């Protein structure tokens, strides 16, 4: 009896191991495809913001704190890198965060490599280098193919695109959300999130 169980366990172990190996190979292959237009590989983001909409009260602090922090004190929901979709009469609130996609459509669409991987603070977030951006909005278009509304947004005043950059590892929306809706998930090995894991939101 005991022996049989043991054998079964061993067999199970083998199977799981095989699947594991297979998946590693797949991910390995997968990582190969994730490349910049110039052929450089894209690392997975090491952090991502997650939202639990069931806790959300729709106060929009996340949006306004983002704009205040990232747009030099220009307070406006239209300059926020996190978007709160609200259905007021039904009371349905949905914070739309940037997923820091594994295979980022925005990044691949950028013609001037203004979209880059953040290295300084080691979040590997997909960020926009404002000095390089030419405001062509191709990233906005690319994102909106899958995610609505598009997470990169256009700053009409500066004529540049803006995008969630995880506030260099300390997202202010997460810090200021009064109800704990938002949290930051981290992993040193990188997170397989966003497109192509999810293809719409």
């Amino acid at each position, binding site marked *: 009896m005991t022996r049989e169980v043991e054998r079964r366990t061993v067999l199970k172990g083998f199977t799981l191991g095989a699947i594991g190996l297979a998946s590693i190979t797949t991910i390995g292959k997968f990582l190969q495809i994730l490349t910049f237009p110039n052929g450089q590989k894209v690392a997975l983001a090491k952090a991502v913001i997650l939202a639990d909409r069931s*806790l959300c*009260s*729709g*106060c*929009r*602090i996340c949006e*306004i*704190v983002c*704009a*205040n*922090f990232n*747009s*030099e*004190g*220009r*307070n*406006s*929901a*239209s*300059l926020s890198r996190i978007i709160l979709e609200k*259905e*007021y*009469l*039904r*009371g349905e609130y949905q914070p739309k965060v940037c997923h820091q996609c594994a295979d980022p459509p925005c990044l691949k669409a950028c013609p001037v490599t203004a979209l880059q991987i953040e290295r300084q603070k080691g979040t590997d977030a997909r960020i926009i280098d404002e000095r390089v951006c030419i405001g062509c909005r191709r990233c906005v278009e690319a994102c909106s193919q899958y995610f609505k509304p598009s997470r990169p947004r256009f700053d*009409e*005043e500066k004529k540049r695109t803006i995008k969630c950059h995880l506030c260099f590892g300390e997202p*202010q929306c997460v*810090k*200021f*959300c*009064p*109800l*704990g*809706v938002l949290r930051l998930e981290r992993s040193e090995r990188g997170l397989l999130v966003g497109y192509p894991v999810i293809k719409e939101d």
Partner: protein
Amino acid sequence: MRKPGGWVGRILRVDLTDRRISEVSTFDYVPKFLGGRGLGAKICWDEVPPEVGAFDPENRLIFATGPLQGTLAPTSGRFMVLGKSPQAAPTESFCRSGVGGHWAPELKWAGYDALIIQGRASNPVYLWITDKRAEILDASRLWGLDTYQAQRAIWKLHGNKTRVMVIGRAGENRSRIASILTDSGDASGQGGFGGVMGSKNLKAIAVRGTGSVTVARPKELMEITATIHKLFSRKSLRSNPYEPEERGFKYNIWGGGYGRGSLSLLPGELLDLCHDPSSQYSQTPDGCFACPVSCRSHVKGPDITHGVAFCAQSYMYLESMIHQPEKGYSKITWQAGKLADLYGINAYELMAIIPWLSDCYREKLITEEQTGLPLKEIGSWNFISRLLHKIAEREGFGDILAEGGQRAAAKLGGKAEKLSWLYYPRAGKFGGFREHWVYLGGFPTGYAVPPLALMWALDNRDALVSHSFISMLWGAAFTVGQNALTAVPEKIIPVLKPVMKAVYGSEKAAEFIQPDGKSLDWTWAAPIVKRYYEHSMLKDSYIVCDILFPYLFNANSADHVGDTTLESKLFSAVTGLEMNEEESYQKAEMLCTLERALAVRDGRTRKDDILHDLYFEKEDAGGRRYHREDLERSKSQYYRLMGWDPRTGTPTGTTLERLGLKEVAEGLKRRRS
């Protein structure tokens, strides 16, 4: 000089009579008049003389934000509706009404600090404001719709990111107790400005903005905001957000006795349904813009109207709990408040009208035949639905009630009028608003507290005592294991001493009863009330929330001392203009004096700062009494502190000039001669 932050710099003026839209610079008025209530008072002083009635086209309907709106500053979702109020009775006078929700930031982002609406359109119209332009559009297809339907129709046209202030049937029919509603329940109720909007043939104001408000010192604003979040929000106290009613955590609103999203439902049928996960009912916290607390609830269910409700709406029809005691707070209780919202009727006024009708019926002063209302079954759905319908449509007896409780009572006269005094404490020409917190614990069963009586006597609407001063009293009560209704002065005074010392400068301020416990101590009434009105003026002008600010009582510390510097710090960070606490009080003193001058111009004198006899006759729960002489003495003291003439209650010429209100001094002088 660099332009200050906060204000976006333009005020939109809309003349509906000749359909002319123009702009005024906000900097003609600010920073002197701050914004909100201060700004509205100045505009009304300049443009609305006493001869203009509330429903006249010449009356101004002002929607004013302050410097903080549309920014990260906590609770900056609020704004003020101002103008000559039709609800003020018997004399119509300048009044204010605050609204929460999400409309104000949208107006700022659209590029305007305030709207001044004047004239009267020849046919129903609505206003569409977006990114520095405004249009007057035809609303004939919106006219007659309820407040939810009208908003849905506008969203179809302008997108659902548009925020709308809208009136219902009551406003269209120029009820004096009509509200203006936005989203699912935030409303400007007191003042009856819905009727003013109806009189101008204006159904709705739809706003959508994509611009921004510039903050002068964003980093500093983040720091103060973080401090405020620490004081008010649950997460910062490391509690579990998944557990709605956690022990040991006290929200710093209303003295710490209430929780997040707990201001809507009382125990009963509906709350049981909401707690049952298998039912389709739910009650979830719902926040105004940039508010760290989310004290309101959004209530949903298959056969009730969804929405948020604040105390006035959700506690409007508590008679239903007596009518069906086995059900407690039932779907009917909820739906009654929502029906008032759909018709656009001020629920706070109905909280007086319904019990008053009940009293009149008990005393056989009104009959079912005469009123056409099922008065035998007050508390039923049949009664409330017919009552609200009649008021909204001004049908039969509803036509009298649509004039507001005070005017209806005056019309019935005699004993019916006397019965109404239980709900309308202020006598004289500037009565007309309901209140019950003239006593701690409510009239007639609670305790007399001198500052409450003085506050109420001096204001021109309900004194909002429940929002800062009284929440401090409640906080003390919660600390000693009592609550808002059972608070006993002797028990709470020791807790109040350090708090009152911090706010008003002396521990003695807390001792509002004599040591022998037999009579009241009025010594500190006037200084307390002066500071109270300054706080109130500032929060309505900057504009921050009535409930969170001023932050007098900390429910989560040992000495319970709050922090009264928060508002001026927010102002400084947003605008970049230095403002310390002391300066802010001087500014508020000036604005309070301006508001008083407006009231004086409308005919208010010292005689009108008085309560009905009832409040001097009745002994409170501790056997003490308000005495007329005490109130009069405190009034004189208050007028002197403010630099007003103690004989008449009129701001003197010297005071007005000292405060930089020369034009007001001249205007008052011209009126008198």
